[in-house]
């Protein structure tokens, strides 16, 4: 095996042209995928039983009123025409009008964007903070009581439904020992970090359960590699060997796990947002599906798709940063 990554130059700094080309290529690749996603989202919604106009009018109007509202909302136009209108709305950035709120979808989603993003970023950072020391400890003290304890704890966490874990944490840190608010989003950045701590922790614990496992086994495998012996024989301290050689070479698979899981979390914050009363996109998605607010659901689908693609790009960049043998192409 080739010796470790520590001293290598950083390919991102040295070659910004490559980076630019890489990003451009990824964006171009994105377009057909996005069109596919919009078509699927559009058609799935139309297949779903239930009609926005009759849900809006409900028991209050007659069939004639419903027909008139459908016409006003443009829901009686042929499907291909509705789809083209939707594409046009995406291109002009408004994403259309919400059928229920009667405001531009872009505005409706923008208001709900930051809680979800803040929550996901916060949870991912917490997961990293939890994973690095615990996985290292587990690997170094392999087979010890500490190792077994860490593994048992996270198996327990993983097998608990998130809403249950959420309610448990609320009871413990919101009511018994009131360190954190029971729910809500707060105002101002620090206040929000405080409000989001418990929900982010619930997600982070779930993520950590996976990443600790993955990092622990990589660390154990890499520790016995020949280049690690070489590094030790150079006279590096055990800490430096761990940090510069073992950790770097172990991170790749954990970054993959983290990226896949975070993509999943983006669409999966629904439950956490409900338990902690957070005004995020997950919550908006659920209410919009129930009221058949087609343009909002379509808009959210596009936003979620973009975010997942963004994560995959960031993951590729992270690979390259961790391991210079990986080139951006």
């Amino acid at each position: 095996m080739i010796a470790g990554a520590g001293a290598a130059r950083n390919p991102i700094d040295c070659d910004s042209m490559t980076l630019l080309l890489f990003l451009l290529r990824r964006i171009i690749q994105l377009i057909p995928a996005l069109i596919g996603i919009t078509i699927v989202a559009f058609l799935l919604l139309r297949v779903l039983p239930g009609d926005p106009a009759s849900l809006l009018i409900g028991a209050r109007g007659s069939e004639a009123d419903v027909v008139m509202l459908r016409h006003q909302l443009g829901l009686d136009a042929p499907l291909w025409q509705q789809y083209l209108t939707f594409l046009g709305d995406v291109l002009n950035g408004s994403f259309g009008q919400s059928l229920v709120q009667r405001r531009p979808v872009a505005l409706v989603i923008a208001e709900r964007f930051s809680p979800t993003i803040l929550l996901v970023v916060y949870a991912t950072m917490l997961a990293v903070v939890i994973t690095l020391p615990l996985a290292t400890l587990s690997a170094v003290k392999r087979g010890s009581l500490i190792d077994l304890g860490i593994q048992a704890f996270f198996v327990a966490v993983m097998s608990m439904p998130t809403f249950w874990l959420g309610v448990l944490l609320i009871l413990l840190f919101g009511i018994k020992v009131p360190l954190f608010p029971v729910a809500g989003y707060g105002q101002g950045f620090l206040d929000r970090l405080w409000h989001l701590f418990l929900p982010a922790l619930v997600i982070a614990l779930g993520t950590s359960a996976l990443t600790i496992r993955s990092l622990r086994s990589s660390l154990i495998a890499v520790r016995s590699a020949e280049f690690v012996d070489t590094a030790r024989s150079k006279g590096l301290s055990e800490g430096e060997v761990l940090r510069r050689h073992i950790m770097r070479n172990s991170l790749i698979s954990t970054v993959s796990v983290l990226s896949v899981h975070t993509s999943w979390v983006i669409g999966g914050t629904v439950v956490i947002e409900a338990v902690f009363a957070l005004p995020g996109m997950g919550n908006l998605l659920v209410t919009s599906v129930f009221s058949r607010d087609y343009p909002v659901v379509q808009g959210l689908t596009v936003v979620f798709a973009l975010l997942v693609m963004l994560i995959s790009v960031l993951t590729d960049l992270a690979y390259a940063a961790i391991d210079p043998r990986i080139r951006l192409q």
Partner: protein
Amino acid sequence: MRNSLIVALLGLMTIGAGSADAWAQGSERFRLGIFADAQSLDPIATSDNPSIWSQLLIYDTLIRPARDGTKLEPGLAESWTSNADGTEFVFKLRDAKFSDGTQVTVDDVIASLKRAQSDQSNWKRFFKPISRMEAVDARTVKIALDKPFTPLLNNLALFSAAILPAKQLQEKGASFFEKPIGSGPFMLKNWARGSKIELAANPNYWQKGKPSVKEVDIMVIGEDNSRVLQLQAGQIDAMINVPVNQIKSIASSGDITAKVAPVYRIDLVQLNTREKPLDNEKVRQALNYAIDKEGIIQGLLFGTGTPAVSSMPVMRYHNTALKPYPHDPEKAKALLKDAGLPDGFSMTMLVQSGDTTFQQVGAAIQANLQDVGVKTELQLIESGAQWDTTKSGKYQASLSYATSDTVDPDQLIGFTAVNPERADAFHTEWKSDRLNELYDKERVTADGPEREKMFQEMEQIVHDGSPFIFLYNKGATYAYRNNVEGFEVLPTSNWRLEDVVVK
């Protein structure tokens, strides 16, 4: 990097401890936890309860239901009169101002009601009978109808008849409702969508000395358990929709009071009378006898309901002589035998998914029906799809409910029992010519004993015809911390927060 994160985390925890007492303040502010955010503050475009409730705090109507829901009382109009045949109503406006200080004028009234009956209104049917409106003088408005329409006064007490400042609405168009102005007790300060609606007391409110709280936060907390936990932690002062199984436990700590308010809501099973054997009245009555309503109310609703006699909740003009179908499986079996079904039959019942109570009640109904030989298969269905499915007539039975927006029974009887009218008797396709005739008459008969008799006869006809399995009138649960006074859920399901005092 790792170290700085840990430091940041420790920092967070100390901030947490520091501001923990910041939530415990009170008296000036009332925080109410509800289950969903309002969709819009445009009164002619909405029909979801959170929107309606918020609108009723911000806007006024000419007249409004009294607190007890039995009659109408003055709102923006301090008095009103009508001519003998009920085709002309004259409203005298009180001296009231919108929250921005401008006077509420007759022109505002006329423009708002015209908007409510226009084609852009989801509620136009309620105001269509108005044919002319004119200003008699600066404070008096006359509303004229081509023919009598008794429910009109109740409809004018609906949120959708809210009086808005005409000029501003005209100038701002749809954006008016981003920061609306009304003459109600509160005004919109800030709306963090999906999170909370912050209201401030309207300094120009016409009722002197009200509201007593300076601010109201309507907090959106979708999860029932989270709402309960927030109330217990003192992060909110009151909440609605307490899960029925927690009504007792929530009050056990001693600083919270939980209550059940009777509201205009009826839970029932729609029976599709297009389908055999549900087209047979005897079969439908048998199903009514088969259900142990009291058992369901005690066992599943924890006593928060009363058995129903018809598709009408207990409200004005209720027929008190009617008794609920008793739980009598033998009678049910005998009726089925009479109908030529000694071995019972099988049917499928739609039950709304995602609602625990509905699913439990559905299972109880299934068990009760099994006892009389009717095999019922439960089919879970999402609420939006349920409505469309029953509307299309492709179902046999469907567990559902109906609510009234007004204190007059006209709206609910029209919806649940008149065919075709608006909904083919709530999608059952059941039809009684006598009831249809009474409905037409009731709408042109002035309020009084004569109209009361018509409603009582209609309720009797629905009871006998049994297009539904009549289940129960489910109460609305709510709870508040004991330093709160004057918070209650009204029969119309909304609340008047101008009377709330936080100590």
